[in-house]
Protein backbone atom coordinates (compact mmCIF):
# COMPACT_ATOMS: atom_id res chain seq x y z
CA UNK A 1 0.00 0.00 0.00
CA UNK A 2 2.77 2.42 0.95
CA UNK A 3 4.72 1.46 -2.15
CA UNK A 4 1.68 2.14 -4.31
CA UNK A 5 1.09 5.56 -2.71
CA UNK A 6 4.74 6.49 -3.20
CA UNK A 7 4.57 5.35 -6.82
CA UNK A 8 1.50 7.51 -7.48
CA UNK A 9 3.08 10.55 -5.81
CA UNK A 10 6.27 10.09 -7.86
CA UNK A 11 4.28 9.82 -11.09
CA UNK A 12 2.27 12.98 -10.33
CA UNK A 13 5.33 15.05 -9.37
CA UNK A 14 7.24 13.82 -12.43
CA UNK A 15 4.32 14.69 -14.70
CA UNK A 16 4.09 18.21 -13.25
CA UNK A 17 7.84 18.74 -13.61
CA UNK A 18 7.87 17.56 -17.22
CA UNK A 19 4.82 19.64 -18.12
CA UNK A 20 6.35 22.85 -16.76
CA UNK A 21 9.90 22.31 -18.08
CA UNK A 22 10.45 19.93 -21.00
CA UNK A 23 6.98 20.17 -22.54
CA UNK A 24 7.02 23.95 -22.07
CA UNK A 25 9.44 23.87 -25.03
CA UNK A 26 8.02 20.88 -26.95
CA UNK A 27 4.61 22.15 -28.01
CA UNK A 28 2.22 21.00 -30.71
CA UNK A 29 1.12 24.16 -32.56
CA UNK A 30 1.62 26.15 -29.36
CA UNK A 31 -0.16 23.66 -27.08
CA UNK A 32 1.51 21.39 -24.53
CA UNK A 33 0.12 17.99 -23.44
CA UNK A 34 -2.00 17.65 -20.32
CA UNK A 35 0.07 14.98 -18.60
CA UNK A 36 -2.07 14.68 -15.47
CA UNK A 37 -5.13 14.06 -17.63
CA UNK A 38 -3.15 11.29 -19.31
CA UNK A 39 -2.03 9.78 -15.98
CA UNK A 40 -5.58 9.88 -14.55
CA UNK A 41 -7.13 8.23 -17.59
CA UNK A 42 -4.49 5.47 -17.75
CA UNK A 43 -4.78 4.75 -14.02
CA UNK A 44 -8.56 4.53 -14.36
CA UNK A 45 -8.10 2.23 -17.37
CA UNK A 46 -5.70 -0.06 -15.50
CA UNK A 47 -7.12 -0.01 -11.98
CA UNK A 48 -10.81 0.93 -12.24
CA UNK A 49 -13.11 3.79 -11.26
CA UNK A 50 -12.22 4.08 -7.56
CA UNK A 51 -8.51 4.39 -8.11
CA UNK A 52 -9.13 6.61 -11.15
CA UNK A 53 -11.23 9.00 -9.07
CA UNK A 54 -8.71 9.12 -6.22
CA UNK A 55 -5.69 9.67 -8.49
CA UNK A 56 -7.72 12.24 -10.44
CA UNK A 57 -8.53 14.17 -7.27
CA UNK A 58 -4.95 14.15 -6.01
CA UNK A 59 -3.49 15.01 -9.44
CA UNK A 60 -5.98 17.80 -10.01
CA UNK A 61 -5.34 19.30 -6.60
CA UNK A 62 -1.57 19.09 -7.13
CA UNK A 63 -1.80 21.00 -10.42
CA UNK A 64 -4.33 23.46 -8.93
CA UNK A 65 -1.70 24.45 -6.36
CA UNK A 66 0.62 25.55 -9.18
CA UNK A 67 -2.04 27.58 -11.01
CA UNK A 68 -3.24 31.11 -10.43
CA UNK A 69 -6.81 29.96 -11.03
CA UNK A 70 -9.17 29.10 -8.12
CA UNK A 71 -8.07 25.86 -6.49
CA UNK A 72 -10.32 22.86 -6.85
CA UNK A 73 -11.58 23.15 -10.44
CA UNK A 74 -9.02 20.75 -11.85
CA UNK A 75 -9.49 18.42 -8.87
CA UNK A 76 -13.21 18.28 -9.68
CA UNK A 77 -12.52 17.75 -13.38
CA UNK A 78 -10.03 14.92 -12.97
CA UNK A 79 -12.09 13.19 -10.25
CA UNK A 80 -15.05 12.94 -12.60
CA UNK A 81 -12.82 12.05 -15.55
CA UNK A 82 -11.11 9.22 -13.65
CA UNK A 83 -14.46 7.83 -12.47
CA UNK A 84 -16.04 8.07 -15.93
CA UNK A 85 -13.15 6.37 -17.72
CA UNK A 86 -13.01 3.66 -15.05
CA UNK A 87 -16.73 2.96 -15.41
CA UNK A 88 -16.55 2.97 -19.23
CA UNK A 89 -13.66 0.51 -19.11
CA UNK A 90 -15.83 -2.00 -17.28
CA UNK A 91 -18.27 -2.06 -20.19
CA UNK A 92 -15.76 -1.97 -23.07
CA UNK A 93 -14.18 -5.38 -23.64
CA UNK A 94 -12.33 -4.74 -26.89
CA UNK A 95 -8.85 -6.28 -27.03
CA UNK A 96 -7.71 -3.58 -29.45
CA UNK A 97 -4.33 -2.04 -28.59
CA UNK A 98 -5.71 1.30 -29.78
CA UNK A 99 -8.29 1.41 -27.00
CA UNK A 100 -6.07 3.21 -24.43
CA UNK A 101 -5.01 5.75 -27.08
CA UNK A 102 -8.60 6.46 -28.11
CA UNK A 103 -9.77 6.77 -24.49
CA UNK A 104 -6.89 9.11 -23.64
CA UNK A 105 -7.50 11.34 -26.67
CA UNK A 106 -11.26 11.55 -26.22
CA UNK A 107 -11.03 11.76 -22.43
CA UNK A 108 -8.53 14.61 -22.57
CA UNK A 109 -10.68 16.59 -25.00
CA UNK A 110 -13.77 16.06 -22.87
CA UNK A 111 -11.89 16.84 -19.66
CA UNK A 112 -10.44 20.10 -20.99
CA UNK A 113 -13.89 21.10 -22.28
CA UNK A 114 -15.40 20.41 -18.84
CA UNK A 115 -12.62 22.38 -17.12
CA UNK A 116 -13.17 25.35 -19.44
CA UNK A 117 -16.94 25.19 -18.88
CA UNK A 118 -16.63 25.20 -15.09
CA UNK A 119 -14.03 28.01 -15.20
CA UNK A 120 -16.35 30.02 -17.45
CA UNK A 121 -19.33 29.50 -15.12
CA UNK A 122 -17.20 30.71 -12.21
CA UNK A 123 -16.26 33.83 -14.18
CA UNK A 124 -12.65 32.78 -14.46
CA UNK A 125 -12.21 32.18 -18.17
CA UNK A 126 -11.63 35.13 -20.51
CA UNK A 127 -10.39 33.40 -23.66
CA UNK A 128 -12.31 33.04 -26.91
CA UNK A 129 -14.19 29.79 -27.52
CA UNK A 130 -11.95 29.05 -30.52
CA UNK A 131 -8.90 29.03 -28.22
CA UNK A 132 -10.60 26.59 -25.84
CA UNK A 133 -11.58 24.25 -28.69
CA UNK A 134 -8.10 24.41 -30.22
CA UNK A 135 -6.41 23.64 -26.88
CA UNK A 136 -8.81 20.76 -26.15
CA UNK A 137 -8.29 19.13 -29.56
CA UNK A 138 -4.51 19.58 -29.70
CA UNK A 139 -3.96 18.55 -26.06
CA UNK A 140 -6.07 15.44 -26.72
CA UNK A 141 -4.05 14.62 -29.83
CA UNK A 142 -0.74 15.18 -28.05
CA UNK A 143 -1.81 12.99 -25.12
CA UNK A 144 -2.93 10.29 -27.56
CA UNK A 145 0.51 10.34 -29.22
CA UNK A 146 2.23 9.95 -25.83
CA UNK A 147 -0.02 7.07 -24.71
CA UNK A 148 1.87 4.20 -26.42
CA UNK A 149 5.03 5.40 -24.66
CA UNK A 150 3.58 5.84 -21.17
CA UNK A 151 0.91 3.12 -20.98
CA UNK A 152 3.38 0.20 -20.69
CA UNK A 153 5.38 2.09 -18.04
CA UNK A 154 2.36 2.93 -15.92
CA UNK A 155 0.90 -0.56 -16.25
CA UNK A 156 4.16 -2.12 -15.12
CA UNK A 157 4.41 0.35 -12.24
CA UNK A 158 0.88 -0.25 -10.93
CA UNK A 159 0.84 -3.99 -11.43
CA UNK A 160 4.23 -4.23 -9.74
CA UNK A 161 3.08 -2.25 -6.72
CA UNK A 162 -0.13 -4.24 -6.31
CA UNK A 163 -0.15 -6.14 -3.00
CA UNK A 164 0.13 -9.88 -3.42
CA UNK A 165 -2.88 -11.94 -2.39
CA UNK A 166 -2.21 -14.33 0.47
CA UNK A 167 -4.26 -17.50 0.68
CA UNK A 168 -4.64 -18.88 4.15
CA UNK A 169 -5.92 -22.34 4.89
Amino acid at each position, binding site marked *: MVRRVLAIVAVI*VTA*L*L*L*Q*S*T*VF*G*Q*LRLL*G*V*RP*ELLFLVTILVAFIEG*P*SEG*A*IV*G*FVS*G*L*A*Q*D*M*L*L*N*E*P*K*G*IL*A*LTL*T*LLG*YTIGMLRQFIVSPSPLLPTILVGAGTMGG*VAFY*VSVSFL*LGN*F*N*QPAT*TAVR*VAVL*AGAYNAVLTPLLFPLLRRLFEGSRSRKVVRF
Partner: protein
Amino acid sequence: MATRTRPRSTRLLVVALVSASLVIITLDYRGGSTGPLAAAGRSAKAGMAPLQEAVTDVTRPIGNFLSGLANLPTLAEENRRLTEEVATARTDSERFAFLQAQLQQLEDLLGLREQLDPEAVPAVVVASGVSNFDWTITINKGTDHGIALEMPVVAGVAGSPRLVGKVIEVTKLSAEVELLIDRDAAVAAVIEGVDEAGLVVGRGDEEPVLLGIDPETDLVGDENVFTQGYEVSGQPGVYPPGILIGQVARVSPASNSLQTDVAIRPAVDFSTLDYVLVLATRSRDAGADEEPAA
Protein backbone atom coordinates in the same frame (compact mmCIF):
# COMPACT_ATOMS: atom_id res chain seq x y z
CA MET B 1 -21.16 -9.62 -0.56
CA ALA B 2 -17.95 -7.72 -1.30
CA THR B 3 -18.93 -7.53 -4.99
CA ARG B 4 -22.47 -6.22 -4.15
CA THR B 5 -21.25 -3.32 -1.99
CA ARG B 6 -18.37 -2.30 -4.27
CA PRO B 7 -20.28 -0.16 -6.85
CA ARG B 8 -22.06 1.62 -3.97
CA SER B 9 -18.80 2.32 -2.15
CA THR B 10 -17.30 3.67 -5.38
CA ARG B 11 -20.21 6.04 -5.84
CA LEU B 12 -19.92 7.21 -2.25
CA LEU B 13 -16.21 7.80 -2.77
CA VAL B 14 -16.82 9.88 -5.90
CA VAL B 15 -19.54 11.91 -4.17
CA ALA B 16 -17.13 12.59 -1.30
CA LEU B 17 -14.33 13.67 -3.65
CA VAL B 18 -16.64 15.90 -5.71
CA SER B 19 -17.95 17.48 -2.51
CA ALA B 20 -14.39 18.04 -1.31
CA SER B 21 -13.55 19.73 -4.64
CA LEU B 22 -16.54 22.05 -4.35
CA VAL B 23 -15.61 22.93 -0.77
CA ILE B 24 -12.06 23.73 -1.90
CA ILE B 25 -13.33 25.97 -4.71
CA THR B 26 -15.58 27.83 -2.26
CA LEU B 27 -12.87 28.20 0.39
CA ASP B 28 -10.41 29.53 -2.18
CA TYR B 29 -12.90 32.07 -3.50
CA ARG B 30 -13.69 33.29 0.01
CA GLY B 31 -10.08 33.28 1.19
CA GLY B 32 -8.66 35.08 -1.87
CA SER B 33 -4.93 35.64 -2.11
CA THR B 34 -4.51 35.72 1.68
CA GLY B 35 -6.43 32.52 2.44
CA PRO B 36 -4.92 29.18 3.53
CA LEU B 37 -5.29 27.58 0.09
CA ALA B 38 -3.42 30.44 -1.58
CA ALA B 39 -0.69 30.05 1.04
CA ALA B 40 -0.60 26.31 0.32
CA GLY B 41 -0.26 27.12 -3.39
CA ARG B 42 2.68 29.42 -2.71
CA SER B 43 4.34 26.69 -0.62
CA ALA B 44 3.82 24.18 -3.42
CA LYS B 45 5.37 26.57 -5.96
CA ALA B 46 8.28 27.24 -3.59
CA GLY B 47 8.85 23.50 -3.25
CA MET B 48 8.64 22.84 -6.98
CA ALA B 49 10.98 25.65 -8.08
CA PRO B 50 14.27 23.93 -7.07
CA LEU B 51 13.13 20.71 -8.80
CA GLN B 52 12.17 22.65 -11.93
CA GLU B 53 15.53 24.40 -11.91
CA ALA B 54 17.35 21.04 -11.68
CA VAL B 55 15.36 19.57 -14.58
CA THR B 56 15.85 22.71 -16.69
CA ASP B 57 19.61 22.71 -16.06
CA VAL B 58 19.77 19.20 -17.52
CA THR B 59 17.34 19.60 -20.42
CA ARG B 60 18.12 23.15 -21.59
CA PRO B 61 21.32 22.24 -23.54
CA ILE B 62 19.50 19.38 -25.24
CA GLY B 63 16.53 21.57 -26.10
CA ASN B 64 18.79 24.34 -27.44
CA PHE B 65 20.69 21.82 -29.60
CA LEU B 66 17.50 20.37 -31.07
CA SER B 67 16.10 23.84 -31.61
CA GLY B 68 19.30 24.87 -33.39
CA LEU B 69 19.10 21.84 -35.67
CA ALA B 70 15.51 22.57 -36.53
CA ASN B 71 16.29 26.24 -37.32
CA LEU B 72 19.56 25.60 -39.25
CA PRO B 73 18.25 26.74 -42.65
CA THR B 74 17.19 30.12 -41.29
CA LEU B 75 20.27 30.77 -39.13
CA ALA B 76 22.44 32.11 -41.97
CA GLU B 77 19.84 34.70 -42.98
CA GLU B 78 19.23 35.64 -39.36
CA ASN B 79 22.99 36.01 -38.83
CA ARG B 80 23.23 38.46 -41.73
CA ARG B 81 20.26 40.46 -40.47
CA LEU B 82 21.65 40.63 -36.94
CA THR B 83 25.07 41.77 -38.20
CA GLU B 84 23.40 44.73 -39.93
CA GLU B 85 21.41 45.54 -36.83
CA VAL B 86 24.56 45.49 -34.67
CA ALA B 87 26.23 48.01 -36.95
CA THR B 88 23.23 50.34 -36.66
CA ALA B 89 23.02 49.80 -32.92
CA ARG B 90 26.71 50.74 -32.46
CA THR B 91 26.04 54.12 -34.03
CA ASP B 92 22.95 54.64 -31.91
CA SER B 93 24.74 53.68 -28.69
CA GLU B 94 27.37 56.39 -29.12
CA ARG B 95 24.65 59.01 -29.32
CA PHE B 96 22.82 57.28 -26.50
CA ALA B 97 25.86 57.57 -24.20
CA PHE B 98 25.85 61.36 -24.67
CA LEU B 99 22.12 61.60 -23.98
CA GLN B 100 22.48 59.25 -20.99
CA ALA B 101 25.04 61.55 -19.41
CA GLN B 102 22.69 64.52 -19.82
CA LEU B 103 19.79 62.53 -18.38
CA GLN B 104 21.87 61.48 -15.38
CA GLN B 105 22.52 65.10 -14.52
CA LEU B 106 18.84 65.93 -14.73
CA GLU B 107 17.84 62.87 -12.64
CA ASP B 108 20.28 63.87 -9.91
CA LEU B 109 18.80 67.35 -9.90
CA LEU B 110 15.23 66.12 -9.66
CA GLY B 111 15.86 63.07 -7.43
CA LEU B 112 14.29 60.67 -9.95
CA ARG B 113 17.06 58.04 -10.09
CA GLU B 114 15.32 55.20 -8.25
CA GLN B 115 12.27 55.34 -10.51
CA LEU B 116 13.97 55.86 -13.87
CA ASP B 117 17.20 53.93 -13.28
CA PRO B 118 16.24 50.99 -11.05
CA GLU B 119 18.58 48.27 -9.86
CA ALA B 120 18.37 45.14 -12.03
CA VAL B 121 18.42 41.65 -10.46
CA PRO B 122 19.40 38.92 -12.95
CA ALA B 123 17.41 35.68 -12.85
CA VAL B 124 17.21 32.39 -14.69
CA VAL B 125 13.92 31.12 -16.13
CA VAL B 126 13.41 27.66 -14.60
CA ALA B 127 9.91 26.76 -15.78
CA SER B 128 6.86 27.91 -17.67
CA GLY B 129 3.30 27.79 -16.34
CA VAL B 130 1.63 24.36 -16.22
CA SER B 131 -1.59 25.51 -17.88
CA ASN B 132 -2.31 25.89 -21.59
CA PHE B 133 -4.40 28.97 -20.77
CA ASP B 134 -1.80 30.97 -18.81
CA TRP B 135 1.36 32.57 -20.07
CA THR B 136 3.69 32.75 -17.10
CA ILE B 137 7.24 31.80 -16.25
CA THR B 138 9.00 30.94 -12.98
CA ILE B 139 12.36 32.49 -12.16
CA ASN B 140 14.93 31.39 -9.57
CA LYS B 141 14.97 34.58 -7.50
CA GLY B 142 12.53 35.57 -4.71
CA THR B 143 12.16 37.77 -1.65
CA ASP B 144 15.57 36.64 -0.39
CA HIS B 145 17.05 38.42 -3.44
CA GLY B 146 14.98 41.59 -3.14
CA ILE B 147 12.17 40.61 -5.50
CA ALA B 148 8.68 41.94 -4.71
CA LEU B 149 5.24 41.84 -6.28
CA GLU B 150 4.56 44.03 -9.32
CA MET B 151 8.25 44.49 -10.19
CA PRO B 152 8.72 44.75 -13.96
CA VAL B 153 10.75 42.04 -15.68
CA VAL B 154 12.79 42.68 -18.82
CA ALA B 155 15.14 40.85 -21.16
CA GLY B 156 18.37 42.14 -22.68
CA VAL B 157 20.56 44.51 -20.71
CA ALA B 158 19.61 47.19 -18.20
CA GLY B 159 20.66 49.93 -20.61
CA SER B 160 18.37 48.71 -23.43
CA PRO B 161 15.67 46.59 -21.86
CA ARG B 162 12.86 44.77 -23.63
CA LEU B 163 9.64 44.14 -21.74
CA VAL B 164 8.87 40.59 -20.57
CA GLY B 165 6.16 41.16 -17.94
CA LYS B 166 5.77 41.68 -14.20
CA VAL B 167 6.05 39.66 -10.99
CA ILE B 168 2.64 38.38 -9.86
CA GLU B 169 3.64 35.97 -7.10
CA VAL B 170 6.81 35.63 -5.06
CA THR B 171 8.22 33.18 -2.51
CA LYS B 172 11.54 33.20 -0.70
CA LEU B 173 13.51 31.61 -3.52
CA SER B 174 11.36 31.96 -6.63
CA ALA B 175 8.88 34.22 -8.35
CA GLU B 176 6.17 33.86 -10.95
CA VAL B 177 6.12 36.35 -13.82
CA GLU B 178 3.04 37.16 -15.90
CA LEU B 179 4.20 37.59 -19.49
CA LEU B 180 3.21 40.52 -21.67
CA ILE B 181 1.30 38.12 -23.94
CA ASP B 182 -0.93 36.80 -21.14
CA ARG B 183 -4.59 37.70 -21.63
CA ASP B 184 -4.68 39.41 -18.23
CA ALA B 185 -1.65 41.59 -18.99
CA ALA B 186 -2.01 45.30 -19.83
CA VAL B 187 0.71 47.94 -20.25
CA ALA B 188 0.38 51.70 -20.90
CA ALA B 189 2.39 52.36 -24.05
CA VAL B 190 3.38 55.08 -26.50
CA ILE B 191 4.35 54.83 -30.17
CA GLU B 192 7.71 56.42 -30.91
CA GLY B 193 7.66 59.32 -33.29
CA VAL B 194 3.89 59.91 -33.35
CA ASP B 195 3.43 60.28 -29.57
CA GLU B 196 0.20 58.31 -29.61
CA ALA B 197 -0.50 56.58 -26.30
CA GLY B 198 -2.67 53.57 -25.66
CA LEU B 199 -2.90 50.28 -23.77
CA VAL B 200 -1.11 47.12 -24.93
CA VAL B 201 -3.09 44.00 -23.98
CA GLY B 202 -1.94 40.42 -24.35
CA ARG B 203 -3.81 37.89 -26.48
CA GLY B 204 -2.01 34.63 -25.75
CA ASP B 205 -0.68 32.97 -28.89
CA GLU B 206 -1.80 35.92 -31.04
CA GLU B 207 0.12 39.20 -31.24
CA PRO B 208 -0.60 41.73 -28.47
CA VAL B 209 -2.77 44.67 -29.46
CA LEU B 210 -2.34 48.37 -28.73
CA LEU B 211 -5.80 49.76 -28.00
CA GLY B 212 -7.08 53.32 -28.02
CA ILE B 213 -5.17 54.71 -31.03
CA ASP B 214 -6.67 57.54 -33.09
CA PRO B 215 -7.72 56.23 -36.54
CA GLU B 216 -6.20 59.38 -38.10
CA THR B 217 -2.72 58.43 -36.85
CA ASP B 218 -0.33 57.85 -39.74
CA LEU B 219 1.48 54.54 -39.10
CA VAL B 220 3.68 52.83 -41.70
CA GLY B 221 4.69 49.80 -39.63
CA ASP B 222 7.80 48.87 -37.57
CA GLU B 223 7.54 51.94 -35.35
CA ASN B 224 8.90 51.19 -31.88
CA VAL B 225 6.43 50.98 -29.00
CA PHE B 226 7.70 51.85 -25.51
CA THR B 227 6.21 51.74 -22.02
CA GLN B 228 4.74 55.01 -20.87
CA GLY B 229 5.50 55.83 -17.24
CA TYR B 230 2.62 57.48 -15.40
CA GLU B 231 1.52 58.47 -11.93
CA VAL B 232 -1.86 58.06 -10.26
CA SER B 233 -2.43 60.03 -7.03
CA GLY B 234 1.28 60.44 -6.61
CA GLN B 235 1.94 56.69 -6.97
CA PRO B 236 4.15 55.64 -9.89
CA GLY B 237 2.90 53.02 -12.32
CA VAL B 238 4.21 49.47 -12.48
CA TYR B 239 6.49 49.98 -15.47
CA PRO B 240 9.14 52.69 -15.79
CA PRO B 241 8.94 54.68 -19.03
CA GLY B 242 11.07 53.88 -22.04
CA ILE B 243 11.15 50.05 -21.99
CA LEU B 244 10.82 48.64 -25.51
CA ILE B 245 7.66 46.54 -25.91
CA GLY B 246 7.92 45.78 -29.63
CA GLN B 247 7.21 47.18 -33.07
CA VAL B 248 3.99 48.01 -34.90
CA ALA B 249 3.09 44.96 -37.03
CA ARG B 250 -0.19 46.02 -38.64
CA VAL B 251 -3.12 48.35 -38.14
CA SER B 252 -6.73 47.18 -38.22
CA PRO B 253 -9.96 49.08 -37.62
CA ALA B 254 -11.64 48.47 -34.27
CA SER B 255 -15.33 47.68 -33.85
CA ASN B 256 -16.04 51.40 -33.41
CA SER B 257 -14.82 54.29 -35.58
CA LEU B 258 -13.36 56.23 -32.66
CA GLN B 259 -10.18 54.21 -32.38
CA THR B 260 -8.09 51.69 -34.21
CA ASP B 261 -6.28 48.56 -33.01
CA VAL B 262 -2.59 48.15 -33.65
CA ALA B 263 -1.04 44.68 -33.58
CA ILE B 264 2.38 44.68 -31.89
CA ARG B 265 5.24 42.35 -32.72
CA PRO B 266 6.88 41.76 -29.29
CA ALA B 267 10.57 42.57 -28.99
CA VAL B 268 11.04 39.41 -26.91
CA ASP B 269 10.79 35.85 -28.21
CA PHE B 270 8.83 34.33 -25.32
CA SER B 271 9.41 30.75 -26.52
CA THR B 272 13.19 31.00 -25.94
CA LEU B 273 13.47 33.02 -22.72
CA ASP B 274 16.36 31.74 -20.61
CA TYR B 275 17.55 34.80 -18.65
CA VAL B 276 15.73 37.91 -17.47
CA LEU B 277 16.31 41.01 -15.34
CA VAL B 278 13.93 42.06 -12.57
CA LEU B 279 13.86 45.84 -12.16
CA ALA B 280 13.75 46.71 -8.46
CA THR B 281 11.50 49.72 -8.91
CA ARG B 282 9.68 49.19 -5.64
CA SER B 283 11.50 49.49 -2.33
CA ARG B 284 8.91 47.81 -0.10
CA ASP B 285 9.83 45.13 2.42
CA ALA B 286 7.56 42.59 0.75
CA GLY B 287 7.16 39.08 2.07
CA ALA B 288 5.51 36.36 0.03
CA ASP B 289 2.03 37.21 1.32
CA GLU B 290 1.95 40.96 0.87
CA GLU B 291 -0.61 42.51 -1.47
CA PRO B 292 0.58 45.31 -3.79
CA ALA B 293 -0.63 48.81 -3.03
CA ALA B 294 -3.85 49.79 -4.86
